[in-house]
């Protein structure tokens, strides 16, 4: 085989492999979108914007965070009450590929617009906790990990626009070590319930 033929053949086979890979990726995305629409949407709403505050908004959530959580549901290392009641079963048969595709799908959806303003005094108090922390209790600002606008980054979840009752419940189950979250255990161990309530109202209003 002449070198030019070899290069052409190699190029063609690489293109086919790439195209096939793209097809597989498209298939995975399509399956994830279909699963999200037909299954997950029953609780998490159309395209990840949930109606009930029992279930978190997933639209615009960071892919890394969703992936970690789905794997934690699947191996049952995340064991708060709602995780056990709802997500242990739902995640039990998800493949790693499907988990990745679902995470990418929700990360790609526009975040839920906030419709709740909250009590202004509490929201202002929550904003201070979020941006400045509680120095007297050695609680660092939430913004340092979750981003200045609570938009989330990598493994640190997006909190902006999330349902306040859901966030409050997560803070409580993490503080009570019903949900494992290594960084957060130390950060919020001295956060009071009042401070929790104000910060979640601020986050919901964002």
């Amino acid at each position: 085989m002449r070198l030019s033929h070899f290069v052409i053949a190699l190029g063609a086979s690489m293109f086919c492999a790439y195209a096939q890979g793209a097809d597989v990726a498209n298939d995975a995305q399509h399956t994830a979108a279909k699963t999200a629409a037909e299954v997950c949407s029953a609780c998490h709403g159309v395209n990840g914007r949930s109606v009930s505050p029992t279930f978190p908004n997933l639209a615009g959530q960071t892919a890394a965070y969703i992936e970690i959580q789905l794997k934690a549901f699947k191996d049952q290392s995340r064991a708060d009450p709602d995780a056990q009641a709802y997500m242990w079963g739902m995640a039990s048969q998800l493949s790693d590929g499907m988990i990745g595709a679902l995470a990418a799908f929700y990360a790609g959806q526009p975040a839920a617009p906030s419709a709740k303003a909250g009590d202004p005094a509490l929201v202002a108090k929550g904003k201070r906790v979020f941006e400045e922390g509680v120095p007297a209790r050695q609680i660092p600002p939430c913004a340092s990990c979750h981003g200045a606008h609570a938009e989330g980054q990598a493994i640190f979840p997006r909190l902006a626009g999330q349902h306040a009752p859901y966030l409050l419940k997560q803070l409580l189950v993490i503080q009570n070590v019903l949900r494992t979250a290594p960084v957060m255990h130390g950060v919020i161990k001295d956060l009071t319930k009042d401070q929790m309530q104000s910060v979640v109202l601020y986050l919901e209003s964002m």
Partner: protein
Amino acid sequence: MLVCRRLLQALGIGSCVALASPALAVPSFARQTGMACAACHTVFPELTPFGREFKLNGYVLDNIRQIKGITVENRETLALNSLPPLSMMLQISYTHTAAALADANVPGALAKDGDVLFPQQASFFYAGKIADGLGAFVQLTYDGVGDSFGFDNTDIRYAKHLDFGGAPGSAHPNVLIGVTVNNGPTVQDVWNTTAAWGFPYSGSSVAPTPITSTKLEAGAGGIGQNAAGIGVYTWINNSIYAEFSIYGAAIRGGNHPLDSTQSNVIHGISPYWRLAYEYRWDRYSMSFGTYGIQAKMHPGSLTGTPTPLAGPTDRYTDTALDFQYQFIGEDHLFTVLATYISEKQKLDASFNDLFVQNSSNDLKSLKLVGEYSYQRTIGGSLGFFNTTGTSDTGLYPSGSGTPLAPLPVSGSATNSPDSRGYVAEVNYLPWLNTKLQLQYVAYDKFNGGKQNYDGAGRNASDNNTLYLLGWVLF
């Protein structure tokens, strides 16, 4: 329920046996989905919005390993749960009526009051996925009063989401379509305002109950499970439901092919319709709906020589309105249920046979229920029911024989179907699949009267019923 579904109403003999409402939630589904009862139920058997989605989607959501079969074209030919979604239910009950009932065998004597049923009911279920998109709820029940074992609620359905194409996540309507095959109108319904899954979710199967009910209720006049139906439905954007079904006679036991010894046999095909709109916001959901059936029926005759079912029929047209409101909080759960059914009866066959006084009658039923639960553990319910209708000496007789002797308990001295009362319940669920219930049914009016309603000296309040229930599913 298996008790005395075949009614003697058209012959003018009212049923005096209560029909405990069939109402179940099954651990089969929990086994299949891996989700706790609370995902689908507020307090079983009442459904949450997710529970309604699960049923409408054909009971097929599965989270257990599947035994699969595919063709070389990758078409799925089998998707079977590796473990069958089976479960069992047991109900143990105690019934005490305010005044003892007349003994069935000794004229003038009273029967023992305080009836323990162990079990009142015991059921086996297959409830879950059969194949991709196809699922079933099949219940086999042993009935403690009838000492019999047989088919109970059954709903087999196929559902599929329409694929509108487009990019993943692109906006398009979420449209589910489905087909249901079931053994009685409202067995397929997902709101707890309808009879098959309505309040009270369990009741005494030995206490007296009013002389009649509409065709779409679980009481003495209801079609119940004496029918087989097939229907198509759609569920659009998780809010709009539309269904059209047809029902035909499917009576178990007795003479087959069906003849005049069977009572209330559906003639031909009866159309059934259902429309509902559900709106969900925050932790709330609210639905408004209508449903109804038009059934032509042969009244039948339990005496004489069997003859073919032919000739004129009785025509019943039921039109119902329903409303449901739910609040599902972390600690507090509230539900309001309301149903109004108007039934028009055109009784050509019964009138020709001199079974009834009037060729046309009306019957109306109103039910209002409020429910509360604290952390799905302790709760209570209060219900109001009111049935009114045209008086008829044939349908609601004051007596039998010549000379006319009163019909104790089941008769109506005023030939009226009017009954009104309250149901109060206290429930304690030490575990999500175990319910201990205290229920009290108080009658303000029974078969047309408050005092001496049967002409034999019995008052409506004599039928007030204390009912204790232990109900466990596993």
